[in-house]
């Protein structure tokens, strides 16, 4: 027998044993005790490996019948049948769960658009200067891709095929490489839009919109912590993550760029403009020059457009938020980036393109999320180098003469944006233009899509369902844009969506029948009195709850933990004055560890499936350990500073 079997059998034996010890003798068992017995039995039954949805349904039915029979034997059968059908129908017409198939569909489509290879390469080049650049690029790629798709298995497998060979060839240690891939791949279930938060919201009756707003920063925080860890390791032990060699960093330039950078200027703007004006390079096609000039000016145009919108919003007679939070957040996130990027990050709040080069995935979003309530007029003093933007800018204020004057903070924001842009263009060489073009083809479409979906949900422009549908449509367009949309791809995505949704939603049917039976038996009351009888402080209760969930993460999957056990924890929360929203964020962070805890971590097995034979499962597990520690640290951080998660929902939905 393998050790995993012993491990599982031990857990099972423990559950049965504790049920025997804790419950009274069968003769004086009350209905409530039957409820507890049912709970113990269901854990054992799930571990036996039968499809959980039907285990729950069958067991729920049997115990519901027992509960009804104890009050009125004649009606018991009819009442049980009614209960089952009512519960099933309520899942069928649930207006929260409806977004699950849509988000899943979006995920499969994006996965099949095959952006990940480009994304990884461009991230890798863009981060060449960061210590441990390959591992950092891996985590960032995983985070973005996993967020957009939400499919852990596929992300880990793909990164195992792309990033693992790259890292091993560059001399990274097996442990660090494996840890970065598995930990990064699991971020998708935490960072919204994630299916896990929808399931939690539907179970706990918490608004999915608030959960999305709340989980955003903890997700970013976790990703940032991973990145920081990798950078620190690379600094302390360069043998585990050697820096990139100079020749790997060279970006091949297209022919015209070589000419221009040699003859005129290596800086993009003067180079291109010089080449267009003076006819010194007849060999260089004008079209290339113009095209690249437009691309080079994109960040500027984006800033101008965003600021223009914000200016119009802000100067309209509406209450306005201050910018302070923005700057603080930007600074925090920029820690990982080098000095140059830091400037552009703090300053360039409304400048996603420039930021994206070296900062964690979310910073773009931070920028947007913050910038919207903040302000920005002042195109007027946009950097002089940008003639086109100045024209755009000059027009906006002119047409709105009667608007409110913009607050000082907007002008400060604008000035910092201008400085950031100036710096950006000062360092904008042709090599960087190439990297920028690669990012434009991989990073920005994904980031924009995530932002658009999340933004509309969080700012209340659309319901999660509507945003999910638009996201699916976006996924279709994205796949089409990358010429990956054909009948086979569409058909596969459709079938997979149906299977995944059926799996989650049938589980919901089963669990709602089960939890109804549990409530009927009065098991909840026994647990309530028992927990309250322990006279815990809120902190102790939180620790207890999180430890229980952590332990459950071994034998069970996150879906099962949420649908079976959350209904038990949620009614206890008001006694301790804990916000179910905050609890949900902690649980979501906690369940991350379930994916990384040996010996059952799914992520490890997916990675093992595509790694070379010399990479052992034990090495992968060892690599995941530090990342698991970081997750626990993140839970503690979130608990100590609830504002990390609660700030955004509180600001938005007071």
């Amino acid at each position, binding site marked *: 027998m*393998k050790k995993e*079997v012993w491990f599982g059998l031990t857990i099972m034996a423990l559950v049965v044993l504790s049920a025997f010890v804790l419950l009274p003798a069968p003769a004086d068992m009350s209905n409530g005790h039957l409820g507890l017995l049912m709970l113990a039995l269901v854990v054992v*039954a*799930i*571990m036996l*490996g*039968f*499809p*959980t*949805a*039907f*285990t729950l*349904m*069958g*067991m*729920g039915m049997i115990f519901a019948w027992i509960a009804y029979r104890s009050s009125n034997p004649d009606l018991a059968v009819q009442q049980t*049948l009614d209960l*089952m*059908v009512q519960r099933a129908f309520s899942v*069928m*017409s649930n207006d929260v769960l409806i977004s699950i*198939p*849509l988000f899943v569909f979006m995920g499969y489509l994006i996965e099949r658009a*095959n952006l990940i*290879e480009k994304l990884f390469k461009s991230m890798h080049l863009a981060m060449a200067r960061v210590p441990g650049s390959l591992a950092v690029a891996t985590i960032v790629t995983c985070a973005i891709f996993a967020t957009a798709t939400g499919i852990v*298995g*596929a992300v880990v497998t*793909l990164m195992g*095929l*792309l990033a*693992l*060979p790259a890292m091993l060839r560059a001399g990274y240690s*097996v442990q660090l490489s494996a840890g970065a891939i598995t930990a990064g791949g699991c971020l998708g279930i935490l960072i919204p839009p994630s299916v896990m938060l929808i399931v939690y919201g539907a179970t706990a009756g918490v608004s999915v919109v608030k959960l999305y707003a709340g989980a955003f920063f903890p997700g970013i925080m976790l990703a940032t912590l991973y990145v920081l860890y990798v950078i620190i390791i690379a600094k302390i032990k360069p043998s585990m993550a050697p820096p990139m060699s100079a020749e790997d960093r060279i970006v091949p330039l297209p022919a015209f760029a070589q000419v221009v950078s040699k003859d005129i200027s290596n800086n993009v703007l003067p180079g291109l403009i010089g080449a267009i004006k003076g006819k010194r390079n007849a060999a260089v096609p004008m079209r290339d020059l113009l095209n690249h000039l437009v691309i080079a000016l994109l960040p500027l145009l984006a800033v101008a457009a965003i600021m223009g919108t914000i200016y119009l919003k802000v100067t309209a007679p509406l209450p306005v938020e201050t910018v302070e939070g923005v700057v603080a957040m930007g600074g925090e996130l920029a820690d990982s980036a080098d000095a140059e990027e830091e400037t552009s990050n703090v300053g360039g709040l409304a400048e996603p393109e420039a930021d994206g080069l070296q900062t964690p995935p979310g910073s773009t979003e931070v920028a947007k999320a913050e910038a919207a309530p903040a302000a920005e007029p002042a195109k007027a003093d946009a950097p002089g180098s940008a003639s086109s933007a100045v024209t755009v800018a000059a027009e906006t204020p002119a047409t709105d003469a009667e608007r409110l004057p913009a607050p000082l903070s907007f002008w400060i924001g604008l000035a910092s944006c201008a400085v950031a842009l100036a710096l950006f263009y000062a360092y904008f060489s042709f090599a960087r233009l190439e990297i920028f073009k690669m990012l434009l083809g991989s990073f920005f479409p994904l980031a924009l899509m995530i932002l658009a979906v999340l933004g509309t949900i969080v700012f209340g422009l*659309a319901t999660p369902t*509507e945003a999910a*549908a*638009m996201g699916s*449509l976006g996924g279709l367009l994205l796949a089409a844009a990358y010429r990956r949309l054909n009948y086979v791809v*569409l058909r596969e995505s*459709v*079938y*997979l*969506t*149906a*299977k*995944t*949704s*059926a*799996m989650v939603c*049938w*589980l919901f049917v*089963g669990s709602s029948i089960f939890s109804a039976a549990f409530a009927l038996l009065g098991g909840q009351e026994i647990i309530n009195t028992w927990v309250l009888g322990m006279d815990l402080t809120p902190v102790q209760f939180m620790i207890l709850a999180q430890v229980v969930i952590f332990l459950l993460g071994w034998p069970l*999957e996150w879906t*099962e933990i949420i649908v079976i056990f959350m209904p038990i924890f949620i009614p206890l929360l008001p006694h301790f004055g804990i916000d179910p929203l905050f609890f949900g964020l902690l649980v979501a962070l906690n369940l991350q560890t379930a994916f990384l805890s040996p010996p059952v971590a799914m992520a490890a097995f*997916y990675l093992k*499936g*595509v790694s*070379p034979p*010399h*990479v052992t499962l034990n090495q992968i597990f060892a690599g995941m350990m530090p990342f698991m520690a970081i997750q626990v640290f993140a839970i503690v951080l979130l608990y100590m500073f609830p504002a990390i998660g609660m700030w955004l929902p509180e600001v938005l939905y007071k």
Partner: protein
Amino acid sequence: MQNLLLFIDKVSTWIGQFFSWLIVALTFMISWEVFSRYVLDSPHAWAFDVMSMMYGSLFMMAGAYTLSKNGHVRGDVLYGFFPPRLQAWLDLTLYILFFIPGVVALAYAGYGFAADSWAINEHSNVTADGPPIYPFKTILPIAGAFLLAQGLVEIVRCIVCIRQGEWPKRGDDVDEVDVAKLKEMVNVKDEDIAKLGELVAAKGNQK
């Protein structure tokens, strides 16, 4: 007998795949509704009901399909390590103990539920003048019946496995993580992985 079982398997798959396409319809319908509401300024009162009907039918009717492809989540901490015969015995017992009673009850109760709805010509009360809801409620017993039929097929599979000592093959279907396909997508070949393995081994020896 054998043919009948294969036939049921095929029917479940076909029905499930047919209803899967609702996701595309759902995507376009909601997108259109959003467009219609925000841009054309003409929301439709029936949109909400139709949305939930599409979603409900989608996942209910895909239940049997998912079962036939072994797609329902199971706790496989232990299960995965058991020999096939033991797996089959466990499954067989639990199919009879939990699955059959549960799904029979659901389908039977669903029949009464839908029949009542037809009898009173029930319409949705989410909005005034809502669309009829009895066809949607009829999905419940139908899905239950298909699920039950597929469950019987699964039971026979268990028996075959107990007799032969290995699981009979399931029909081919698309997998969530299809390693071969993913490899092809990112142009990685098995030789590359093998070469990499040698590289790692070589480095390990140097240390």
